[in-house]
């Protein structure tokens, strides 16, 4: 198992987020087959119902799809996956910018700060 969850957040949401990250990072590619519900449940050390719920959530989002009798697959719809990437990025940026503004930084300072940080990182 070895999976640790934040005890204050629904576990199914935490797994949904993990799966999305795997897809955006490219660990899971368009058209890849997902592990079975049972395998995922054992891997995460969670209840199979929780994994079922993760799958319906991802399916509802259009990120994975069921193929009759074969299981669940990452969608082939590249457009949807590109959109997902953008959504994820926007989400993180929104959060970051909100925190920064609340801490009293101006938009110019934020942009400068990010550039400086990335510049330093490239050394």
């Amino acid at each position, binding site marked *: 198992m070895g999976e640790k969850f934040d*005890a*204050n*957040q*629904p*576990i199914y949401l935490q797994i949904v987020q993990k799966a999305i990250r795997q897809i955006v990072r490219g660990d899971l590619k368009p058209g890849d087959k997902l592990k079975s519900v049972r395998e995922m449940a054992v891997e995460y*050390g969670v209840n199979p*119902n929780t994994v079922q719920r993760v799958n319906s959530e991802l399916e509802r989002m259009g990120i994975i799809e069921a193929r009759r009798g074969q299981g669940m697959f990452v969608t082939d719809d590249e457009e949807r996956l590109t959109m997902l990437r953008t959504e994820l990025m926007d989400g993180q940026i929104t959060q970051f910018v909100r925190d920064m503004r609340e801490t009293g930084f101006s938009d110019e300072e934020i942009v400068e700060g990010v550039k400086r940080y990335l510049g330093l990182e490239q050394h």
Partner: protein
Amino acid sequence: MDRPIVQFQDVSKRYPGTEALKHATFDLPRGKIIGIIGPNGSGKSTSLKLMAGLLQPDSGTVLVDGEKVSRLVARKVAFLHETDQLYGFYRIGEMIDYFSSIYDDFDTGKAREMLQFLQLDPALKIGSLSKGNRMRVKLVLVLSRNAPLLLLDEPLSGLDPMVRESIIKGLISFLDMERQTVVLTTHEVEEVEPLLDVVAALKDGTVFKVEEADVIRSEYGLSLIDWMKQVYAHTR
């Protein structure tokens, strides 16, 4: 919705000197892994024994799968006791054969598969097993029955982390969630937290809350432990 797998209707149970359950009324849903949680002496074990037909209520009714609980309920219920119920002189394999001879719903193929999964040698004598391995054997015996209700009394109690993990994995791997419901008692909520769908909280012999674990996390933003602390504080 399906009929609940377990129904307690105004159930009371007294032991000399204590009242274990007081007018407990609650339903447990089907196809879930349900944790009965609560402090020691809150009536967890008594509730489980009432479901198994090992105890009779002093008043009120306990229904399992819509049927009033009697000794006959054993057909529908597989019970994992906290205390040891195994015969030390049997080998694991003989224990499996013995169980398959007393229970019609015992799936010997599944039992063999589970032994392999849990790395248990059928030739070993029960009496020679470590505590962890005895618990593994008990899990095999319970899960190999195609009973609609599986009751596990403190399945992780006093076991080291490696054994706990293998017990949890064995449970997830071999449970048939389409047809089976698991009710387990625990006083170590942290250990089983990711496993539970539903939590039934007991205090002073009354079940005051049956709630989905993820609802507790999303609606209250609390871990099960913090939620427990809060609910127990409110009912004082």
